[in-house]
């Protein structure tokens, strides 16, 4: 077979073996074997699979291979194109879809603004009603008091926590209106002079003042207004300080390196409020340190640990329903509670704790240092299975040999509180008495009273004033401030986190939660401004929960640190070998095409 473009063909094909005849067909076609091998030409059917030839290797022994047939070339081209089509139109999009990290859009600026407290001027306008049936110019009095309060700068309107006075419209003493922080009743009292009495079970505060002598109406009014202002300050000052303390981290920048260190935060606080004595902040700090983190529901465990087998049982259910349930219902607008109880016999206190016998009081006493390791956490089954935060209340009955066991303290309750954890009461039973095997309801009454006090302290209810509704209202406001701050700062944390870790993926659930949280935050803010604190707490709670849900989204775990050279090492071992034939195929086709063009030009020239 003769060929015209021998030179170009020679560069592409090479004969490695010639004149070799192999009979692989088992002699079935012997007549073909007789063909003259020298005149045969090597096939070109497999050229698309071979390695590139070495050019310029022109030995005399090389024969000219036949030209490829056009349909062979076409088939080869189609095969190549089909493979590349799949790689480009399916492979590339899939590669993009499976390796890009999905990041749902988040309202970053808004989140930052919330965390910096720019979007909501948190306000706690407290409405105080004044009832002064016997005072003719009550309006005037109110104005004076309001002025006095505003001037004192403690309850001024520009502060987040401020008081507004209003004359009681109705005659009826309600004291139950949710939006009224307290009701002042001005009662003339000729015997005691200026005096205020807080009613313990309502929001009513009675203010007694000496009845005005007809001569000096104005001076009485001045004295009264001064006293009213003072009373209000006594009632609400602590709460106001607390609220300011709680709101402060919101205005400082928690993202900076030093802000969260408690010390520097303290310094910040001091700078912000130079007029405040450090002691007040310290007191708040100390009070807050025992308060458990806010949660919409808590689990309470009452445990009876007795050092012997006695008492064998206790009337805890009836005691709880009788003494504790009313308090828990009163707390229900703030948090819900679940309760479990347990009894453990032969429960020993930690081995390191050794009481000493005090001869003068004829009792065993525990040192204060011992109390911190009093809880025998290794042996007492105190781990909760509930998913809510757990509060433990432990009633401990000491062994007769070390009874009575006392704690040196000012009170007789023989109990102590463990911050953020629970309370312990040591109950010394008279071991000579009968009925030791059962703790009756009356015996438990003082214990539960102590626990109730502990519970209020752990939840953060202020110890002051004596009125329970006012204390709970105050707790509501305090918790509202807390959840608002917590929700906003969580949003801020999430925003900074998203910025800082580009490798983290953000699912749509996160952006949904963030939107929801922001919506509820602004709702809560509105409710606060209106003075309906229970609703505000409700909204703030949702906001906080949603913000936490967004932050703790479980799919948002950062990818393991993956430098680019590692990525190459992942891709290359598999993709390299697969792509070599594809790339080489394209190169060869391009080369063939160029040569054909050159040849065509040569012919036309």
């Amino acid at each position: 077979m003769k060929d015209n473009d021998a030179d170009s063909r020679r560069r592409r094909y090479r004969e490695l073996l010639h004149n070799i005849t192999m009979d692989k067909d088992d002699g079935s076609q012997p007549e073909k074997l007789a063909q003259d091998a020298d005149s045969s030409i090597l096939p070109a059917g497999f050229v698309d699979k071979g390695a590139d030839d070495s050019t310029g290797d022109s030995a005399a022994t090389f024969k000219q291979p036949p030209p490829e047939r056009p349909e062979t070339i076409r088939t080869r081209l189609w095969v190549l194109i089909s493979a590349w089509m799949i790689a480009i139109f399916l492979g590339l999009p899939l590669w993009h879809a499976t390796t890009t990290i999905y990041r749902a859009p988040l309202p970053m600026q808004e989140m930052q603004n919330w965390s910096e407290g720019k979007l909501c001027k948190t306000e706690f306008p407290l409405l105080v009603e004044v009832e002064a049936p016997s005072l003719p110019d009550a309006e005037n009095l109110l104005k004076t008091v309001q002025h006095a309060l505003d001037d004192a700068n403690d309850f001024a309107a520009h502060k987040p926590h401020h008081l507004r006075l209003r004359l009681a419209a109705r005659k009826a003493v309600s004291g139950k209106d949710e939006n009224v922080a307290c009701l002042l009743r001005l009662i003339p009292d000729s015997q005691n002079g200026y005096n205020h009495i807080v009613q313990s079970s309502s929001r009513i505060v009675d203010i007694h003042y000496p009845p005005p002598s007809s001569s000096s109406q104005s001076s009485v009014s001045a004295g009264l207004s001064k006293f009213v202002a003072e009373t209000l300050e006594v009632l609400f000052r602590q709460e106001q300080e607390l609220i300011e303390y709680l709101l402060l981290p919101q205005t400082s920048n928690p993202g900076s390196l030093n802000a969260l260190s408690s010390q520097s935060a303290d310094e910040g606080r001091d700078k912000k409020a130079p007029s405040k004595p450090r002691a007040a902040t310290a007191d708040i700090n100390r009070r807050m340190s025992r308060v458990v983190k806010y949660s919409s529901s808590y689990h309470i465990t009452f445990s009876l640990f007795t050092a012997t087998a006695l008492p064998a049982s206790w009337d805890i259910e009836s005691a709880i329903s009788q003494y504790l349930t009313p308090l828990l219902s009163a707390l229900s607008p703030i948090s819900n509670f679940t309760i479990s109880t347990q009894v453990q016999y032969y429960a020993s206190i930690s081995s390191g704790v050794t009481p000493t016998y005090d001869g003068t009081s004829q009792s065993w006493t525990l040192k204060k240092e011992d109390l911190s390791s009093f809880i025998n956490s290794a042996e007492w089954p105190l781990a909760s299975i509930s998913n809510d935060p757990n509060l433990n209340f432990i009633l401990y009955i000491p062994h007769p040999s070390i009874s009575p066991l006392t704690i040196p303290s000012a009170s007789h309750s023989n109990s102590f509180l463990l911050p953020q954890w629970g309370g312990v009461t040591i109950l010394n039973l008279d071991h000579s008495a009968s009925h030791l095997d059962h703790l009756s309801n009356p015996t438990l009454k003082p214990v539960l009273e102590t626990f109730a006090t502990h519970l209020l302290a752990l939840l953060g209810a202020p110890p002051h004033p004596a009125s329970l509704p006012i204390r709970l209202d105050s707790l509501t406001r305090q918790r509202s401030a807390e959840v608002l701050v917590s929700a906003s700062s969580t949003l801020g944390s999430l925003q900074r986190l998203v910025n800082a870790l580009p490798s983290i993926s953000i699912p749509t659930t996160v952006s949904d939660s963030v939107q929801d949280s922001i919506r509820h935050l602004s709702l809560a803010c509105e409710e606060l401004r209106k003075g309906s604190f229970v609703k505000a707490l409700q909204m703030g709670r949702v906001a906080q929960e949603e913000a936490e849900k967004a932050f703790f989204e479980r799919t948002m775990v950062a990818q393991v640190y993956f430098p680019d050279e590692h990525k190459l090492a992942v891709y290359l071992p598999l993709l390299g070998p697969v792509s070599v034939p594809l790339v080489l195929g394209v190169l060869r086709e391009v080369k063939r095409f160029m040569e054909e063009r050159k040849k065509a030009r040569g012919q036309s020239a």
Partner: protein
Amino acid sequence: MDRKSLLVIGAGALIRLVLFTAFPSLPTILAQRVEISTPVTSYKRLQEGIYLYTHGVSPYDGGVFHQAPLLLSLFSILPPSTIITNLLYVLADIFSAISLIQIASSGVPTVTPHHVSPRKANSWPPWAIAAAFLFNPFTIATCIARPTIVFTNTIILHSIAAAVNGRRGPAFVSMAMATYLSLYPVLLLPPLLFLTYDSLKATSKPSIQAFSAISMIILSVVLMIYFKLSHLITGSWEFVASTYGVHLLLPDLTPNVGLWWYFFIEMFDSFRAFFLCLFQLHLLIYVPSVCLRLRKQPLFALITLIGISSIFKSYPAIGDTGLYLSLLTLYNHTFSLMRYTFFLAAAILYATFLGPAFYYLWVYAGSGNANFFYAITLVWSISNALIVADAVYATLRDEHETERPELIGKDVVQI
């Protein structure tokens, strides 16, 4: 069918029945072999699914069962007897053998409208091809272990048999069933189209486009009927994710003879999705190439794709290789052109014997680790891939020689 064929079929059935009855524990032992039963075909898992199904619980609860719902229907109406189940599997193999005989008798392996093999006189008689299937130890072991891949294989073979005879309806209905049962046969559609088209009688040939469109419509309608039936009998669409989802996403990393399990055990989680796509695409990329290059012999393109998918699919088993090797015997006239027959046979034997041994060392004796078994599955896959490549080489060479008869008997090299 001639007497020899009947004899071979009878002997094949007899061997299976003897194995079932003489070694009653053999099916259980083999059913536990990872080389034979995969999570998507295992008989044990099928039993679990049937149990749940007949007790009113969704068969896909618990994540053990990953097979198509119609198999549940089939097995739940069978009397719950081992003998009948065994007979069903033996029947399936006999049916496969008959299909193979039909394919061989049709002459398509040697003569197509575009190509007539110069070696056509060399091809084996149909009974020999049936014998190669029925006495293939891989096929026998698969039949005894009773994975549901047996049915898929039977249906694929029947589909091919219908296609070579130009019977489009049965061919595509069967291929729809095979796709429904184990997803990967969907890759065989393009060559099946060509094969059926080429086998049509020359008098009433429509254009290839019209032919493909109608065939595709038939296939989709049938598939939809199957899906709707499945929905009706299981009461939910859960089966789609639990069967095809498992084929595609490989949630179950039980070892098998394939290449996927070890790779995806080791793969970083963040790249898992990408490499799943890559592995599936890798299978897909062969389909157009093989069909284009082997357009003259669509049956061989189909067989080659079966071979490729038996290596690269997500849950391969030796049953897939058994099917490929049996089908390959249809092209025995080109075997003389293969270059590495001895080496490949040795490698296959090597992997066959060392695989179980290494698996034992790893899982039971504890003196080896996963790499032992993985190394053997690599050898197995490479030798299978070389068989496919060598067979393609031989067939292309055969094809080439029809173009250039003067080359017969000459040696060729790749350049």
